[in-house]
């Protein structure tokens, strides 16, 4: 568990800043991204996203990397494309939207997954039709192994929910009964975000809460992340009592708290905000 926690720590969103004296490393990363060494390129793409280096030259180079043909795995995957897509999601530049939409047709499952998540982060509704298409036409030639579903459905469903794609609801609905639990959870999450009434939203949210008692730890962890991402307030107690690492519960409750705080002045803390903070205090 400690390894897992440490990984999680380094992914924390509030710590992704760099300051002046690391400048040399930024230049080095940009150089590496254009260099001869394939492994260094892949690492540089990740690094530039991690440290939010959103300079025009970096964005352009990363967009070019989405069409890279040099770096291939034995199975035919595209490591540099995957990392470039992930980085572009973090860098928030909308010039990446169209190139990322093209990536949704890539033969590499993981490139499609990274592109869907990046498009979710870029918050551009332009991506919606292409994402819906992936839900309905699963027959893209794929290099991925048989153990994977035909498409990265969980990433696609999450993106459609976050992009407020109300037109997608009829296409999302069937995934509520998908055989893979992880995918069912993503569908619940999207349906929660797209629900047209508070009662309907609660129905989907409560089903997600139910998944917190699933015997599989990895699934409980992803449900914690889902509930934090949608900020479903009624889940607070259930989150605090799930069998999972405190670090993950704290991140999930942080999502609930911040949803509760949006739009109000911070000095007016609601009873629910107070309740969430009390639960967080006990998990420290």
């Amino acid at each position, binding site marked *: *568990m*400690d390894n897992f*926690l*440490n990984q999680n*720590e380094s992914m*924390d969103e*509030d*710590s992704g800043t760099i300051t002046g004296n690391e400048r040399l490393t930024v230049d080095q990363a940009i150089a590496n991204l254009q260099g001869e060494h394939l492994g260094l390129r892949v690492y540089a793409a990740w690094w530039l996203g991690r440290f939010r280096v959103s300079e025009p030259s970096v964005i352009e180079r990363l967009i070019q990397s989405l069409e890279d043909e040099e770096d291939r795995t034995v199975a035919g995957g595209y490591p540099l494309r995957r990392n470039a897509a992930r980085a572009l999601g973090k860098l928030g530049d909308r010039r990446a939207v169209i190139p990322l939409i093209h990536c949704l047709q890539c033969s590499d499952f993981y490139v499609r997954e990274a592109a869907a998540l990046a498009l979710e982060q870029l918050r551009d509704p332009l991506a919606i039709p292409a994402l819906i298409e992936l839900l309905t036409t699963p027959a893209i030639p794929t290099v991925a192994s048989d153990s994977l579903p035909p498409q990265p459905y969980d990433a696609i469903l999450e993106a459609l929910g976050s992009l407020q794609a109300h037109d997608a609801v009829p296409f999302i609905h069937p995934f509520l009964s998908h055989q893979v639990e992880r995918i069912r959870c993503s569908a619940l999450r999207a349906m929660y975000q797209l629900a047209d009434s508070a009662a309907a939203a609660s129905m989907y949210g409560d089903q997600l809460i139910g998944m917190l008692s699933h015997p599989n730890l990895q699934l409980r962890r992803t449900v914690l992340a889902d509930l934090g991402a949608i900020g479903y307030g009624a889940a607070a107690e259930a989150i605090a009592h799930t*069998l999972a*690492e*405190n*670090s993950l519960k*704290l*991140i999930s409750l*942080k999502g609930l*708290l*911040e949803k509760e*705080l949006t739009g109000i002045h*911070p*000095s007016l*803390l609601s009873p629910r*905000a*107070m309740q969430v*903070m009390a639960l*967080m*205090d006990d998990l*420290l």
Partner: protein
Amino acid sequence: MTDIDVLIQAVDRADSSVKLLEAVEKLADVQSEKGIPTLIAALGYNNPGAAVAAVDGLIRIGEPAVKGLLDQLDSHNYTARSWAIRALAGIGDPRGLITLLGAATADFSMSVRRAAAKGLGTMKWHWFPDDLLEIAQYEALDALLFVVEQDEEWVVRYSAVVGLQSLGITFGQPTSEIKGVWRCQIERQLTQLIATDLSLTVRARTENALQQLRSQSPKPPLLSVPSSLSTMDWHLILEKLYERKGNERQSIAEGDPRKYRQLAVTIHHRPHPNLEN
């Protein structure tokens, strides 16, 4: 064989992670001092579920477990060390103070820094003799002010805010001059944090802390569970605090976490102090 021996044996003989977890939970539930060595050993078995249960049990047993936990800190098993620090933070025994000061400001694991920061606010201050209380609380205050300002992880700053709130409430409606100054220092730092912290969650918790401090009702009298610390224990704590002060003056700037690291090393390798001197 007594019941407690049976429970201990069940932990020693567990041959799967599920059995280990169950056995540790049962042993933790009886809160017996006799189970302490076994619970402490369970911190090092690389079974997170069992470690959580053991930490929980050790905190409930409290003070009698402190000696064993401090010894555990000598081990080379980093994971066991970090669990032991969490237990020390939960117990709040004065003998853990130096360890928590170092852990809150300089440990590389954010879950350890987080636990230690909260623990610094909830030490069993009423166990400290008057001459030591002031210097101990000052060190805790100093460390927590450093953490809210400097730690890059939101959750550690959040925890330090919780620690500062507890500490501020301990200072009470100020009666003595120095505690009044400290209390102002806490409120000033929290007010600044609300304006500057990058994390909305930390800002909200800080707002909450300030509200709780300002609406503080007069302190209820403490339940006076007597401390079992010996003269020797107090002597050691005081020695280490003075030594820490000395180290600070010699080399490193105020607030630099390295001072705690150096201190921990110094304490670690120091022979038992001679009481005759």
